[in-house]
């Protein structure tokens, strides 16, 4: 079976009017599988947001190719097709919102995709309900009068209303407190397990993706430096620091324990870490 999304040797340079171009991505090859959560990690300026926009069909690679379900994305028709399958949540909701009411904003995408009448209404209502928006009560309000957190929820409802097969979120958890983060995490988990949605989390803070992401693609200076599972990334701790990244406390602890000769099954589960620690303490007591 083909991966959902494949990037082959993708490079991208931003044109600088009259001054040539600024390279942002070079030779990136990557796959996104159904039902997986992939984290694209990188420091400020590493190219991760550019990569997100290439994956979503908003930027066309300067060289290399993008494939969807094994089929090369080509020309305007190909790009439009890709945009129907891949939804992107921008880092700043202001970049995404523009309609004068919440309801119009959430319906914009699905309407563009040709949905009308009862079907459109139902889709928009469902997406809004996921984020606790009651459209009868607040659908007519302007999205710009909302708090930052609420704006982000409207923007996300608009992306989810497109029913994307691949959902890319650029720094979705910045500035979110525990409750909003937990709500979004469980929503993403549900989309992945019930609908098989592929989820891509773009972030400079690996801790925010840690409990969700299976694989980590680490960018630096526009290049793909590491592509690893969570367990393997833990052993790459020393390589992350020069790239401006750090493991969350989970990973640092698992790594320290490994170096002390203690195996850790899953560097995100407190019980298995506690068991590992207690096993040495018991061994120590028996001496």
């Amino acid at each position: 079976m083909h991966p959902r999304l494949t990037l082959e040797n993708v490079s991208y340079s931003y044109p600088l009017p009259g001054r040539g171009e600024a390279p942002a991505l070079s030779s990136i090859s990557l796959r996104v599988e159904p039902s997986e959560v992939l984290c694209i990690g990188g420091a400020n300026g590493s190219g991760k947001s550019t990569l997100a926009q290439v994956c979503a069909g908003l930027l066309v690679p300067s060289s290399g190719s993008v494939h969807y379900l094994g089929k090369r994305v080509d020309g305007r028709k190909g790009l439009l097709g890709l945009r129907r399958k891949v939804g992107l949540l921008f880092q700043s909701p202001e970049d995404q919102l523009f309609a004068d009411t919440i309801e119009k904003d959430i319906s914009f995408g699905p309407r563009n995709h040709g949905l009308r009448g009862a079907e459109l209404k139902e889709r928009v209502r469902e997406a809004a309900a996921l984020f606790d928006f009651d459209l009868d009560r607040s659908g007519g309000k302007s999205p710009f009068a909302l708090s930052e957190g609420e704006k982000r929820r409207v923007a996300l409802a608009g992306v989810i209303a497109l029913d994307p097969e691949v959902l890319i979120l650029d720094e979705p958890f910045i500035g979110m407190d525990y409750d909003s983060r937990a709500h979004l995490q469980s929503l993403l988990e549900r989309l992945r397990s019930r609908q098989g949605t592929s989820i891509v989390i773009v972030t400079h803070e690996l801790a925010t993706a840690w409990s969700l992401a299976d694989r980590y693609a680490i960018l630096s200076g526009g290049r793909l430096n590491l592509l690893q599972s969570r367990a393997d990334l833990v052993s790459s701790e020393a390589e992350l620091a020069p790239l401006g990244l750090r493991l969350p406390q989970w990973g640092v602890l698992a790594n320290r324990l490994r170096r002390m000769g203690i195996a850790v099954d899953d560097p995100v589960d407190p019980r298995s870490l506690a068991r590992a620690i207690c096993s040495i303490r018991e061994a120590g007591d028996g001496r």
Partner: protein
Amino acid sequence: MGGNRGSQIAVEGLSFTYPGADRQALSGVDIVFEQGQFYAILGRNGSGKSTLARCLNALLLPSAGTVTSCGLDTQDPGNSLDIRKRLSMVFQDPNTQIVGTTVEEEVAFGPENLGHPCGAIRERVNSSLELTGILGLVRSQPSRLSEGQKQLVAIAGALAMEPAFLISDESTSMLDNTARQRILELFLSLKEQGIGIIHVTHFLEEASMADRVVVLDDGRVTAESAPPDILFDPDKVRELGLDPLPVTLVAKEMSALGHPPAGPVLTVEELISCIRA
């Protein structure tokens, strides 16, 4: 603590309501901030953290109660310039703060506005660039710098005012790890030099570096103490709308297995050293 009123920020019975809002953003806040201490302000979204920060340096004025910053009542309009000299503020997005076309110009902006003589301004600019470790960028254009460097420029600009307190409203939240570490180290060294640091943050790892943690919930101060007293109990931390530190979740499981750590642990090093003990 009976410190000198001139080196404190004393907040008494502070309430604040935004115009047109139907509820108070802050209600009945009593707290004292001392110079030379590092405070972390935590709380869920909408708990009043940024509002409190803005009340301290007279960007917002109390609806009720008083804020006396370095002996000056924020309510008195004649004090606001003096208050902002003593309490400098940096924000989440440095781009909203930067106005100069070179780093030097940017950092000189504050002291120039205060009408200091040229020589004195140059001295202040140099010493704040040195403190923040970006003296090498003095001729650079701020717009060409990385986000982390821009934030350091914003902090250098704040320090050029030679403040008694530096107030940071989530100044680290958009930065990558390298830039964030640098800023936290800078906060610690500024504190050693007697400057009070008041840092609004979502990150418990940052809060664990502070001397005191202040937690706001629904506009009220619900806790104020040394970091371990609040941060070590993951259930309490969740109740406050915060993400517990992984190490504290592991410690709780260790206790359930009959092997509690010797004391409250917040960092990996603390946990490891109690295994070795």
